[in-house]
């Protein structure tokens, strides 16, 4: 159960937005297998700093798989090889001694690189701004139990709402589509009675905004679902499609 491993890291280094980047090779020695991937990077960074070099920039906050701030493409997969796991929750016991690990930032036109592995995901906020909410002013709500919600729907809604906005879906999607992210919000709100009044408007404006921001189109490739740390199902994309069809053909919204 205990032990250490040695690794070769091939990491994308880019000093700033729009600047030229390249891969650098680093040796990560005596890595305890109980470390998380980010802790492994911490260790490498400490050594880099001590030798006067700039540490590898990467985003992170909670380090427990919930804030959605971390993420990189590790050996060709967003958040690395383990299913349902963010990078911060990926532990080194899933690698083997002597492995070479290629680490690249999430690549998408809509996620410009800020530095090294850090990307700008504010496009996700933009999509939510377009309609990812229920319009209710503070203090005007009726009693919470006045509208029962079938528990099955509440559960499904929660499945979708679990999205942490990490962007792995976009990173992995061959088409650079943000469909799973958009669908998780659309589906979450469409499943609840509170969200129905704005459902048509929401799906049209959010998918519209996604397109404007330069994300690709979903081709049902299912790669997003495969890397999503919260394992959000593409059945939510299907629900978005249904909502879209309904909204486009039968609602008064355009």
């Amino acid at each position, binding site marked *: 159960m205990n032990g250490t491993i040695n690794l070769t890291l091939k990491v994308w280094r880019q000093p*700033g*937005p729009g600047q030229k980047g390249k891969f650098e090779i680093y040796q990560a020695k005596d890595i305890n297998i*109980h*470390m*998380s991937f*980010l*802790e492994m990077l*911490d260790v490498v960074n*400490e050594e880099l*700093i*001590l030798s006067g070099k*700039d*540490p590898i*920039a990467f*985003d992170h*906050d*909670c*380090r*427990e*798989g*919930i*804030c*959605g*701030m971390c993420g990189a493409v590790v050996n060709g997969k967003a958040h690395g090889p383990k299913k*349902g*796991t963010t990078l911060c929750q990926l*532990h080194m016991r899933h690698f083997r001694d002597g492995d070479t690990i290629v680490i690249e930032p999430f690549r998408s036109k809509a996620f410009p690189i*800020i*530095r090294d592995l850090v990307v700008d*995901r504010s496009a996700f*906020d933009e999509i*939510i*701004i377009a*309609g*990812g*909410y*229920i319009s*209710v002013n*503070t*203090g*005007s*709500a*009726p009693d*919470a*139990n006045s509208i*029962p*919600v*079938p*528990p099955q729907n*509440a*559960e499904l*809604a*929660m499945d979708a*709402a679990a999205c*942490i*906005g990490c962007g792995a879906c976009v990173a992995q999607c061959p088409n650079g589509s943000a469909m799973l992210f958009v669908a998780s919000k659309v589906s*979450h*709100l469409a499943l*609840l009675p*509170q969200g129905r009044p704005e459902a048509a408007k929401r799906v049209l404006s959010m998918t519209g905004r996604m397109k404007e921001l330069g994300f690709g189109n979903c081709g049902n490739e299912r790669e997003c679902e495969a890397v999503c740390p919260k394992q959000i199902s593409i059945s939510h994309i299907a629900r978005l499609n249904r909502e879209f069809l309904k909204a486009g053909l039968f609602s008064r919204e355009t």
Partner: protein
Amino acid sequence: MSLNPSIPSGPLEAKWTKYCSEIKLVSPANKRKFEIIVVGTGLAGASASAALAELGYNVKTFCIQDSPRRAHSIAAQGGINAAKNYQGDGDSIWRLFYDTIKGGDFRAREANVYRLAELSVKIIDHCVAQGVPFAREYGGLLANRSFGGALVSRTFYARGQTGQQLLLGAYSAMLRQVKAGRVSLFPRREVLDIVLVKGQARGIVARNLVTGELESYAAHAVVLATGGYGNIYFLSTNGMNSNVSASFRAYKRGAFFGNPCFVQIHPTCIPVSGHYQSKLTLMSESLRNDGRVWVPKDPKDKRRPEDIPESDRDYFLERLYPSYGNLVPRDVASRATKAICDQGRGVGPTGYAVYLDLSDAIKRDGKEVIEKKYGNLFEMYERITGVSPYVSPMMIYPAVHYVMGGLWVDYNLMTTIKGLFSLGEANFSDHGANRLGASALMQGLADGYFIIPYTIGGYLASDSFPPVSPSQGEFEDSKKEVSEFIRRLLSVKGRRTVTDFHRSLGSIMWEYAGMERSDEGLRKAKGMVEELREEYWQNLLLTGGEREFNQNLSKALRVADYLEFAGLIIEDALTRRESCGCHFNVAYQTPEHEPLRDDQNCAYVAAWEYGGKERPPILHKEPLVFENVTPGIRSYK
């Protein structure tokens, strides 16, 4: 300066209503003319931004993360309390109020806590209307569970992701206001100073974390909702970006700091596994509802835990606290755990862990039920440790989790600086010396959605505001100071990394100013921190420059503040001559090792005033008056 908590007169139950109906209002047309800066986008900051903008104010909202949705509130797992009494088990506003005051070991203000309990009900209504997918019963009505320190089921939850769901609710409400043009977002900004003009807080200086540029922003009032400073202990359950900087700079500008030594240690965290460890992960307290905490009776028992028979186990919480058992409040559970481990009876490779066992519950309710309740926590545990809790009991150990201390605020949530408000975990809060489970989320949202929209209006309507611009002297001066600070750090060019310093600071604090404190230890810590701080300014090694995305530099700024702030925590712990809640001084304990409060002399809020550079801080005491409850002995036996 005298401390005026500005508590409205009248009976406890009527204070807030009366206050709301008497407060001065800003006319809708004028609201548009007011600018408010909100720092922080956790539950407190995001809800405040949304609610203020809904009223018509212009809000500028800042956060460190790349998106406001990632504030650390997102990590709260367990749930949020509200006195809805949907379960009909005898809950009421009064009971929630009483439990919170008692849980806080009678070191909180009655009026504030009562208001909190009162507003809890509205929070749930609002969050449900926003689409927060709370757990439901078969009939579609809201489900509840019970949580540490309470005998009623009043905790609302959304799987193990309650904080996330509540935050996404507040976040999306705030983004709705971005669309309406009333909130402007400033992510990836670190606020490093509060700018005062003629004694009023009129703006901030922030560092743009992408470009490294210093930016100043002016407003009519500033709201700090910057969360807690638990990270001063290096290892904590807080997010890596949580820090004290904004509050600490406010303190240096004249805001008093309340009860800095009240730091809560959470009993159920995954134990430390090695030196490289960067943070600790909480296992939700809700596990204690169904889980039983134990160690082997014989410390030398090396059998696998699942092989140790019932008769050879010591369920020490149940033994020590027969009536509350595994559900005793956090401080009690944490201390009991530490005591057992200190006696050499702990388990795991380090001996600093105890078992949290759900096998009885799995036997009783079936794996399916347990999986539904705790599935994601179990998964998380297995992911981190590589051990499945369905097979073998979890191991847990206490870790720093929450700070009750924070900027001192009055009933209006205003600090001692006019126009500077503080919400959520960042203020010294309503939790006294110890916070009950599931009540931080409640407080953050009560502050943001329901209190600040009223109180800030009262302030804006009753004061006058000469025009200011971010290019005027006060802003420039403050910018210069910050820039000077940054340059000094960068010019040290020593040989030790920030993380290394931070780790050292953390271990000093954990050892001497953590769960158990002694005068001797605290004094020792004071010296050690002093030394470390001196070394910091001579031996810090930073790479990169000021005007760039430099995470190392951001960290160095925070650690610089921690090194100073640590002194204040220690000072506060030293001056409080009692044990209460989470503050346990070994000199004040009962023969059974329970904290010994001193209501005669210590029923006060410690509000510390910055004494100036290299001068000791000045203590002000806000006496706590209990008119509605009698401080009793907090017994969970």
